[in-house]
C-alpha cells in the first residue's frame, strides 16, 4: 500500500501573459519501506514535485491532482494545521541548494535543535530541556557524519563548507524521525567519500528503521544500486515508472533507455544491437513545450501519432506513456 500516492498532479504557472503547465499529469507513489528514485534531466520539474508535496509552492500557482494523499488522507484538502502536522512529524524534506534553505542569521546548531519535535524533550525546567535538545542535536550530527560537533554547532551557514551545510540539512530532516524522507539531490557537489557516506546512511536507515525515501537525483549511478523502484520524469511528465530491476533490464520508454545509456556503466548490461545513441538536443523550456508527447522532437521512434499525448499504460506494476514502446516483443 502506497504511503505517498500522487495521481495526475498538474501544476499551472501563470506567467502574466500565458499559463504554462510546469507539471503535466505526474503520477508518483512511494510505498512503505521502499526507496523510490525520481530521475530526470535538470529542469524536468523534480524540485517542483518536491515543493508541491511539501506544500510550499507560491499560493498563486494552481495545483490540481486526481489524488495526492498521505496514508490515505488527501494532502490538498486537509486543514492547514493537519498539513503542518504531517510535515512536522511524518515527512521530512532535504531541499536542493542547502545553503539557501538555511537561515543565514542563525547558528547551524540552533536550527538543528529547532527541528527536534517537542515530544522528544523531557524535563521540567528549561535548562534541562535545552540540555536535552543539545544532546539530541549532537548525536544526530554524529550520525550524519559531522564529527567535530564543537566546531560547527555555533557556526553560521556561510562560515562552513557546502558539505557540512548539506549534512546539517540531512540531520535536520532525520532528527524528527520521519516516516518518509524526501531528498532533493542530496549529494550534489559532494566529494565522493562524503557521497558514499550519505548514501550508506540512507540505505541503513531504510533497512533498520524502515524509513521510506524519495530520492531525487539526476545521478543514475548513485541511486541505481540503492533504489527499489524508479520514476522517470521528462519535461514535467512522468514517462515511465516501475521496479528498478525491470526498468534497468527492459526500459519501455525511449527516454528511459536514453537516460540509462548515458550512464556508461549500464551499457554493458544491454544487448549491443539495441543500443540507442543518447538523445540529441536538450530539454525544451516551459514556454516552448511541444504538443502531444513532449519528447517528440528528440525521440528517434517518433511517428505521426506522437502529436497526441500518449495514455498511461500498465503492465503489472510497470507503467509507461509511449505510443511505440521498446522491447514489447519480449513481454
Amino acid at each position, binding site marked *: 500500500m502506497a504511503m505517498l500516492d500522487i495521481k495526475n498532479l498538474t501544476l499551472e504557472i501563470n506567467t502574466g501573459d500565458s499559463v504554462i503547465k510546469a507539471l503535466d499529469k505526474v503520477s508518483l507513489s512511494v510505498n512503505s519501506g521502499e526507496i523510490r528514485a525520481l530521475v530526470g534531466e535538470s529542469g524536468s520539474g523534480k524540485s517542483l514535485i518536491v*515543493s508541491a508535496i*511539501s*506544500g*510550499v509552492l507560491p499560493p498563486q500557482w494552481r495545483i490540481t491532482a486526481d489524488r495526492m494523499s498521505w496514508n490515505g488522507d488527501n494532502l490538498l484538502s486537509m486543514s492547514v494545521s493537519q498539513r*503542518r*502536522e*504531517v*510535515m*512536522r*512529524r511524518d515527512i*521530512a*524534506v532535504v*531541499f536542493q*541548494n542547502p545553503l*539557501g*534553505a*538555511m*537561515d*543565514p*542569521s*542563525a547558528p547551524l546548531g540552533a536550527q538543528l535543535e*529547532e*527541528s527536534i519535535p517537542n515530544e522528544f524533550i523531557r524535563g521540567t525546567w528549561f535548562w534541562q530541556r535545552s540540555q536535552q535538545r543539545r544532546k539530541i542535536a549532537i548525536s544526530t550530527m554524529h550520525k550524519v557524519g559531522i564529527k567535530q560537533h564543537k566546531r560547527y554547532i555555533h557556526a*553560521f551557514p*556561510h*562560515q562552513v563548507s557546502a558539505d557540512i551545510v548539506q549534512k546539517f540539512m540531512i540531520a*535536520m530532516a532525520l532528527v*524528527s524521525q520521519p516516516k518518509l524522507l524526501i531528498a532533493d539531490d542530496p549529494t550534489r557537489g559532494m566529494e565522493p567519500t562524503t557521497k558514499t557516506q550519505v548514501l550508506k546512511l540512507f540505505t541503513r536507515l531504510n533497512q533498520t528503521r524502515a524509513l521510506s525515501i524519495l530520492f531525487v537525483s539526476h545521478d543514475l549511478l548513485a541511486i541505481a544500486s540503492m533504489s527499489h523502484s524508479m520514476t522517470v520524469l521528462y519535461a514535467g511528465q512522468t514517462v515511465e515508472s516501475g521496479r528498478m530491476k525491470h526498468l534497468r533490464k527492459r526500459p519501455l520508454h525511449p527516454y528511459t533507455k536514453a537516460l540509462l545509456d548515458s550512464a556508461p556503466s549500464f551499457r554493458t548490461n544491454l544487448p549491443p544491437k539495441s543500443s540507442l545513441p543518447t538523445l540529441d538536443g536538450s530539454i525544451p523550456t516551459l514556454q516552448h513545450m511541444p504538443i502531444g508527447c513532449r519528447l517528440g522532437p528528440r525521440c528517434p521512434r517518433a511517428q505521426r501519432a506522437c502529436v497526441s499525448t500518449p495514455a498511461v499504460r500498465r503492465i503489472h506494476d510497470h507503467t509507461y506513456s509511449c505510443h511505440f514502446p521498446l522491447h514489447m516483443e519480449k513481454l
Partner: protein
Amino acid sequence: MIRILVRYSVLFVLTLLVLTALSFVLAYLFPGDVLVNLSGITPENEVQRDALVRQYRLDQSYLIQFWHYLQQLMNGNWGYSFTSGLPLREEVGLALPATIEISTYAMLMALFIGLPVGYYAGIRSYSLSDRTINSVSLISYSVPVFWLALVLILFFSLELGVAPLSGRISLMFDIPSVTGFILIDILLSEHIDHGLALRDALHHLLLPTLAIGTITTAAMIRITRRSVIDVLQKPYIAAARARGLSRPQIFVRHVMRNASLPILPLMAIQITTLITNAMIVETLFSWPGIGNWLIQAIYQRDYPALRIGMLAVSTLVISLTILVDMFNRMLDPGRERFERGAI
C-alpha cells in the same frame, strides 16, 4: 570585532578632519576679513588686531594655522557670533540638542508605529489592508515636509486651537538647560509645577514631531514592508514551513531577525533626511534648534556662526551614520561576505 572598531574609528577621524578643513577653508572663501570670519571678533584698533593675528597664528603658514584651529576646536574655543557676541560653543550647545530632541521623538514615532505596521503589511502582503497601508505611506512619504507642517499649523493651531503655534515651551516656565532636552530638563529643574510644564512642553512638541515623524514613519513602513516581503520569499522560509513550523514560530525565529538586518542601514540613510526635515520644520515653528539658528545666521551674514553650524550639523550626521553602520556590521554575521560601503 576589534578590526571593525579600528576601521570605523579611522574612517570617522578622517571624515571629521576633512570637514574641519572645509570649515577652515570657508573662513578664507567667505567675503570679508579672514580674521573676523575665523574669530567672530571685529578688532577695534591695530593693537587688538595684531594680538588676534598672533593668537590665531595668521602670520604663519596655512598648515600651522589649521593645526592651531584644530586645537582651538578641541579646547572648546569655537569663536564668537557676530550678532550676539556670545561664544558659538554655547549657542550651538543650546540649539543642537533641541534639533536632536525632535528628531529623536520623530524616530521613536517611526520605530513604534512604523515597524509594527510595516511588519503587519509585509506579512499580509497584497491584501486589502496591505494595499491601504502601502498607499497611505506612499502618499505621506511624498508630501513635502514644509507643506505638511503648514497644513498641521493651519488645522490644529489656527482652526482647532489645540496646539500652540510656535516655540518650545510657554514663557511662564523658566527651565535651565542642563541636557538640552526640554522634557528631561523639566524633570531636573526645581521650583516649578512639573506636571503643568511637561504638559505644556508636550503640546509644543506635538506638531513639529508629527510633521517630521510622519515622513520618517512612512519611510520606516515602506522599508520594513519591503524587507519582510523579501524575506518571506526566501527558500529558507519555505524550508521552515516544510519542517512544520507554525506561522508565528517562523515569524519570530526566522522572519523578524532577517528582515530587521536590512532595515537598519536603510534607516541610517533616513537619518540625514530626518535631520534636514527637522531643520526645515524648526523655522516654521520657531523651534530653537540648529536649523532655525543657521537661517538666522544666514540672514545676519554671521560667517563664523555659519562655519561652525555647518561643522556641527555634518559632524552629527556623520557620527550617527557611522555608528549605525558599525552596529549593523557587528550584528550581521553574513555581512563580511558582501562588504558594503561604509557610508
